[in-house]
């Protein structure tokens, strides 16, 4: 089939819906079709908030139909899967058999390709490291040629966390994690303020842990929230509730500051003072938002941004200062997450570093950009990093300063993609492929 038959013009957005792109899109339905396409960047489920999976005026390859399990070894737990497979689906089918994707981000819609290209982290990062650290082989398609790469060589380290710049991830072999079953025992505790939060996170020995922060709380309550700790288990729980969908854009007042403050306060008190332990289906612990399809429409037409940074352990006061700046801005949404990170990373451009990571959503109002820029500067000063899966606004020189292996990575990417066909809007905006 001539490749013309594969492309059509399409307008699409990042998950935050503040940035969009119009360009040609192809959606191969089988591996053979993937190899006949001219080089173009790949798109998973576009769960990156900003422009990581956008290519305005250029081409993009939608991987959603290449989503099959193509091999599984029940004894070793090694899974061979196509790049477009969604982690939530893999969790659903393999958890009852005692295996889980080793690392799961906060959405089960993320694909294997997207999880590798962003080297995603999950609620177990402090123990298990990143997704890429559990990948034992990747089949990349470079200019129509499939090649298999394994850990240890520099192309592999440039591909994991490599923002899709070394080729399209057609399939990968992943070492799945043994799990006790498909339910979660979750302990939830109220944490009254910032210092307590950090010490509880440090003290936590749970396999999975995550903090929800009330980003509207100030003064003595600054940094209050709920710490959730989870372990997998076996047993019976009510089936996951059916999903719902947000049919259209919400009006502006839906996430106005008084509404968010009231919501957060209720959400905080939801957990009894003494804490509680509940048993949940696995997906409700890992992917709490997925049940509400298109929840990004809650932010209205203009969309929203997520700011996510990580700072080294000894720089935690910088995070508290950020939280204080966010609380007084009146811009915070209910979505704010604090996690401890371990040292694990899988690639040259991976985001994590040992320390703490904070993620907060902001509606894309005019006042949001200056606030996010301020947070970006605070991150830089604290020797931290901004997560490119979430970024839409950062400055090129700041980001380049935050990723020390960027130049070496750019060289690998240049070898893999000499004419720069795989560049996305994010890569161009931040000039990430600059050599030297």
């Amino acid at each position, binding site marked *: 089939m001539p490749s013309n038959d*594969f492309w059509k013009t399409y307008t699409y957005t990042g998950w935050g819906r503040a940035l969009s792109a119009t360009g040609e899109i192809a959606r191969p*339905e*089988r*591996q053979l079709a993937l190899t006949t396409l001219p080089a173009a960047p790949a798109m998973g489920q576009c769960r990156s908030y900003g422009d990581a999976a956008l290519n305005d005026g250029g081409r993009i390859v939608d991987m959603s139909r290449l989503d*099959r*399990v*193509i091999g599984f070894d029940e004894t070793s737990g090694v899974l061979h899967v*196509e790049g477009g497979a969604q982690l939530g689906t893999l969790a659903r*089918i393999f958890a009852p058999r005692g295996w889980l994707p080793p690392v799961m981000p906060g959405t089960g819609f993320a694909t294997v390709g997207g999880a590798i290209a962003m080297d995603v982290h999950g609620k177990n990062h402090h123990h298990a490291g990143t997704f890429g650290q559990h990948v034992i082989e990747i089949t990349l398609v470079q200019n129509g040629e499939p090649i298999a790469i394994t850990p240890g060589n520099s192309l592999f380290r440039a591909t994991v966390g490599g923002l899709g710049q070394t080729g399209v991830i057609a399939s990968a072999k992943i070492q799945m994690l043994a799990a006790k079953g498909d339910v979660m025992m979750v302990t939830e505790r109220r944490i009254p303020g910032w210092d307590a939060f950090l010490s509880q996170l440090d003290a936590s020995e749970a396999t999975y842990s995550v903090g929800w922060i009330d980003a509207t709380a100030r003064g003595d309550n600054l940094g209050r929230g709920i710490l959730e700790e989870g372990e997998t288990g076996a047993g019976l729980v009510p089936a996951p509730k059916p999903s719902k969908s947000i049919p259209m854009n919400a009006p502006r007042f839906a996430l106005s500051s008084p509404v968010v403050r009231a919501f957060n306060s209720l959400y905080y008190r939801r957990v009894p003072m003494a804490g509680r332990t509940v048993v949940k289906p696995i997906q409700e612990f890992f992917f709490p938002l997925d049940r509400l399809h298109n929840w990004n429409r809650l932010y209205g037409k203009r969309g929203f941004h997520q700011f996510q940074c990580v700072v080294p352990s000894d720089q935690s006061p910088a995070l508290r200062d950020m939280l204080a700046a966010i609380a007084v801005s009146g811009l915070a949404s209910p979505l704010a997450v604090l996690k401890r990170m371990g040292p694990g990373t899988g690639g040259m451009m991976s985001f994590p570093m040992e320390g703490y990571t904070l993620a907060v959503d902001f509606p894309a109002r005019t006042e949001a950009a200056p606030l996010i820029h301020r947070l970006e500067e605070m991150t830089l000063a604290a020797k931290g990093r901004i997560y490119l899966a979430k970024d839409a606004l950062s400055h090129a020189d700041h980001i380049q300063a935050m990723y020390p292996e960027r130049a070496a990575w750019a060289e690998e990417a240049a070898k893999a993609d000499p004419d720069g066909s795989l560049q996305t809007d994010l890569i161009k905006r931040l000039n990430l492929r600059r050599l030297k």
Partner: protein
Amino acid sequence: MTQTWLVLGATSSMARAFIRAVAQDGHAVILAGRDLNDMESTATDARAHGAPLAQVHRFDARDPDTFPALIETMTEQDGVLNAAVFVGSMPEQSTIDADPSLIDGTITDSFTGPARVLQMLAPVLEARGSGTIVGVGSVAGDRGRIGNYVYGAAKAGFHTYLSGLRNRLTRTGGHVVTVKPGFVDTAMTWTVEGMFLVAAPQSVARDILRAVTKKKNVIYTPGFWRLIMTIIRLVPEPIFKKLSV
């Protein structure tokens, strides 16, 4: 009792969604089509989703030599035997206008090829006294239109065939579901312009399985196409012939 589904045209994304759904229900699948490599991937995926057995067979609607092996394999399976036909091809009408010899292939892919396989399978189902056949036709088969009347004619032929087969198999406990999809988001329609209300293959698969369970005879998927096609069929020919819908 164990159930086995023979799926003709197993590389179609509509078929793939259907295969996953029946695999999740714990049924065995026999995949038939031209791209063996691709079907191997779908077979592994079906096993991961719960199919106790997933096999791959070469099948070309234009090569009747590939038919008997399918019937043989099906006969070897225990329990209830079912078949679902997703095969079809839709060359652009203008391409057919330029090369009328393409008509034969279009009719073979969408009608006579699969019909021959079903005709060979029918006695096996009759002998078992059970089994369901799903035939995917198209709203395009409900009335001939300027834009795709050769494809439409093939589908119309297939609809009529399925209706007769239903009449036959009912007598021995079998059942036939005729499926008429509207626009579905697959490779066939990816670059076709003027599509609207396009359905996901997964929702078509769900509709098909619901129709199988409820023993429906003819379904439109999504359901609102029944209304649209009723209106289109009601337009008097003197007016219809001047329209380009």
